[in-house]
């Protein structure tokens, strides 16, 4: 056996290559920064802290959802029920806050979110229904129960002090953003330091291999969806903090938006790879574009068209260089 260690030139070359490769992994981050600089220079009122704080605050909710979505996407699935769970969480929290107490409302909402996640995970892992059908069905189910329970009426009467959770700031930083940062950090730590995180990548990379290697694939999937449900419930509570009413019909666009954030951030839906910063980056990219278009005053008719085009170009540049690189 020839040890390669002797060949220090090779190792140096290896390192340079590594650096180059990781540089191009950050292509999207670079595009994001360039976009940001462009907006700062040319979009009036963009480069103010007040505006940044607004953007952070309003995108924190979807960011929290995206963190959970990332976990599920890395295992090779996704969750279409996060919107329903968010709505449920905000309605349940509102109802209990009005009728009983604030802590109970929040805790109950989070536990319910966790429970829906467990149900999702159970059907996906144990019964073997695919994530699309499962989470679409639970989405519809949960929404249905919400409508039945509320007769589609929003729940009013949450004390105004509760809005501090959605609109308040600590120093200059919006509270939702602090929650988002906490959730992102937890997600990062899970992926980085726990056995669960390790298993999530292996399960997403090759389920058969994971199973044969002795990993309890079902439990990993179940836990992941449970976390996804929990995070969606957290987002729902923050939403309640913003709107102060528990609306059964809200949050319908969360699933697609959160998946979009993760995927725009560069994570493939095929599973096995993905980092928290992709979810964060994707969320901010979409959020900043929407904000800039509002500030520029692009007509609401044009906004979707421009958004679509910007996403295609930004992600296109990233994907194109990736594809070139893959051609080896």
């Amino acid at each position: 056996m020839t040890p390669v260690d002797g060949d220090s030139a090779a190792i140096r070359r290896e390192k340079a290559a590594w650096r180059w490769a990781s540089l191009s992994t950050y292509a999207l981050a670079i595009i994001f920064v360039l976009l940001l600089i462009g907006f700062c220079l040319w979009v009036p009122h963009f480069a103010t802290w007040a505006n940044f704080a607004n953007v952070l605050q309003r995108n924190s909710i979807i960011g929290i959802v995206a963190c959970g979505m990332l976990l599920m996407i890395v295992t090779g699935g996704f969750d279409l029920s996060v919107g329903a769970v968010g709505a449920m969480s905000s309605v349940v929290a509102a109802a209990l806050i009005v009728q009983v107490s604030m802590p109970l409302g929040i805790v109950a909402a989070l536990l319910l979110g966790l429970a829906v996640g467990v149900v999702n995970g159970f059907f996906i892992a144990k019964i073997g229904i695919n994530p699309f059908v499962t989470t679409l069905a639970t989405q519809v189910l949960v929404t249905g129960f919400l409508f039945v329970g509320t007769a589609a009426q929003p729940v009013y009467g949450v004390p105004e002090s509760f809005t501090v959770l959605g609109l308040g700031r600590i120093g200059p930083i919006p509270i939702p953003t602090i929650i988002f940062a906490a959730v992102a950090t937890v997600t990062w730590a899970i992926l980085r330091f726990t056995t669960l995180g390790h298993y999530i990548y292996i399960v997403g990379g090759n389920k058969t291999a994971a199973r044969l290697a002795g990993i309890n694939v079902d439990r990993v999937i179940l836990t992941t969806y449970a976390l996804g449900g929990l995070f969606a419930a957290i987002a729902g509570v923050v939403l309640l903090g913003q709107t102060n009413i528990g609306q059964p019909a809200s949050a319908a666009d969360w699933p697609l938006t959160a998946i979009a954030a993760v995927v725009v951030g560069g994570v493939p839906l095929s599973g096995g790879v993905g980092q928290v910063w992709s979810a964060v980056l994707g969320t901010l990219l979409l959020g900043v574009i929407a904000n800039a278009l509002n500030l520029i005053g692009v007509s609401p008719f044009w906004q979707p068209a421009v958004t679509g085009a910007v996403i295609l170009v930004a992600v296109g540049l990233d994907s194109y260089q990736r594809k070139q690189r893959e051609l080896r």
Partner: protein
Amino acid sequence: MLLEMRDIRKSFSGVQVLRGVDFSLKAGEIHALVGHNGAGKSTLMKVLGGNYADYDGEVRLDGEEVRLGAPRDALQRGVAIIYQDFSLVPDLTVAENIALGREPRGRLSGTIAYGRLRDRSKQEAERLGIALPMDMPVRRLGVGAQQMTEIVRACSQDVRILVMDEPTARLAPAERELLFATMRRMAAEQQVGIVYISHFLDEVRRLADRITIMRDGAVVETGAGSSYTVDSLAKLLVGHEIVASLRPTQAGGAADGAREALNVRGLSIHGRPPIDLSIRRGEIVGLAGLVGSGRTRFARALIGDVRSAGRVEVGGRLMKRRNPERATRYGLVLTPEDRKASGLALTSSVEANIVASALGKLLATAGIVHPGSRARMALDMIQRFAIRPPARKKIVGQLSGGNAQKVLLARAVASRPKVMVLDQPTAGVDIGAKAELHNQIRLAAQQGAGILVISDDLDELLDLSDRIVVMTAGAMSGSFRKAELTRASLLANMSRLPGRA
């Protein structure tokens, strides 16, 4: 000259893997390409197959310079390649896979004549003397049959250059001989130029007109096949004397009185004849059989990945409700035969794969991983199994075939099992590394593990095992102490039909 490749260079995001390789092939010649794992053999052939648009150097076919930018460019010029990692479509039938990309057209333009496709594929297989279930989806075949499917596919094309990247790594002796006969015939009768990559140096020597030896992305030398011995080849391709390490460090040889590591009683899959097997601690048992004899199924049934009746005891403890996770907890691990489909998470790093089975048990408290010990274990295994490049963060999908195989074994060993079931453990591993792997397997046995080795490489079985059991058509048909066996008698036992054992 049919093919000339001159000064071929190829790098992956900056790392040079081919450093100016020259290679040539004559019509009607069998030209062997040998080299250690990661030497760059597959990469060179992938250049020839048009996989990489960005190689440097010159490729001449019939003296005419060509630029191979896409697989189609190569195919059109009559280059057929059997890739090391299967390139089959799992849900298509065997017949359809054989015809992949060259489906016979139907009477209406744009349609396919499926009837003719099936007949043609069947004929092509028969012409080569290979029996395959034409209508079975490939996903249901064992790796041996999959390999044969690939061989039929490549050999039935109208080829001028045929590249075979380790076709025999997962073939049993009978199939090998069949393949060699086919190769000789194609070379002699159809003047096909054949590039043959293998780690079985005696085969290479027997078969090849010329041999090219590669090391670290460069050619060491090219010479006539007859001018080498196995030892001289081994020395050239590894770069130093390995003869010493080729010899066993002293066989495991469990004492007869040693406690049982594995005890299987009446294990029956789908109502087939029950199987009994017992392995003592420190014992290495070989499991021999023909392609499709059911060895892989048995191994999977052991760990509970396939439903079965019967009792399995690991280290004296009865395993209730068998499944792979429990098996791992009981200390029974399996390395699957198909490293790509069911062995490794290809998108994850070497480190993540190595620690996958050990993580929960050895490297974490309350679900939190100790990053230090994880890295230490990975580095230790990378060193022990000589995985290269020795980078723990390298994505497994980017490793050479042999190195990926080592990762798979390292994963099993790292979890410190009581029983290891190794399905084709050294498929695609080079001669130097194979000796190392064998030593690692023996080491594990010496440390008290019971080991079951499934292999189509009879020399490996004879070399490694203390005892060999034979399986035919899903049943155990014999058990032999090593001293009772020769290559020939083992072969005879494998081919015997059940009932007559």
